[in-house]
């Protein structure tokens, strides 16, 4: 069964450092997302991406964040200068059609980011 894969599973970084979280969405999916879950809190939307551009972003997704689809398979989330409050589980997801249509989004297993 096709799945969304994320690497690494756990990333520890020093405050102020840049991190890149990587995702390989399901190959025939066209919409890509990043969500995060701070420990003990709800899953929060960060950004959606379609046709090589951001289609929606939340207030969390400020100038420190960026996304990229550098080739035909990878989808990355970059945090330019990490802060302690960026520590969370980051989930990549993909779907065939956009949200708002009842389409299931498939989630990766997550990357746990710890900023020290």
């Amino acid at each position, binding site marked *: 069964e096709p799945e*969304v894969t994320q690497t690494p599973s756990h990333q520890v970084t020093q405050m102020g450092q840049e991190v890149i979280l990587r995702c390989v969405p399901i190959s025939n999916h066209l*919409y890509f*997302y990043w*969500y995060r879950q701070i420990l003990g*809190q*709800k*899953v*929060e*939307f960060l950004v*959606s991406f*379609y046709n090589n551009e951001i*289609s*929606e972003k*939340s207030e969390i997704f400020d100038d420190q964040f960026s996304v990229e689809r550098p080739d035909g398979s990878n989808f990355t989330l970059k945090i330019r200068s990490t802060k302690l409050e960026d520590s969370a589980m980051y*989930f990549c*997801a993909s779907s065939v059609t*956009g*949200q*708002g*249509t*009842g389409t*299931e*989004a*498939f*989630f*990766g*297993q*997550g990357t746990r980011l710890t900023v020290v």
Partner: protein
Amino acid sequence: DQQVKQNSPSLSVQEGRISILNCDYTNSMFDYFLWYKKYPAEGPTFLISISSIKDKNEDGRFTVFLNKSAKHLSLHIVPSQPGDSAVYFCAAEGFNAGNMLTFGGGTRLMVKP
């Protein structure tokens, strides 16, 4: 921002009995409601969904009920099995509510053998 809310952080049920997980929402723009299940160290996996124009959707042991006037939905699992023990997230989306899922806080279901 509490557009989607799950008021019960945890629920414990005996194997074979019914589990009922509840969810409330405030945004009338939502068109679809989805339930995701999450095991530790895994991402959420889709379970079942319902369109806002329906009041019930059933898939095997899982049934979702929607009361649009009360802005309330519930997930029924019957019979409950120990393998159902997980965190269940209610999520909502809408064509005019942004290209995103809005999640509730989750309910941890424990099914005791």
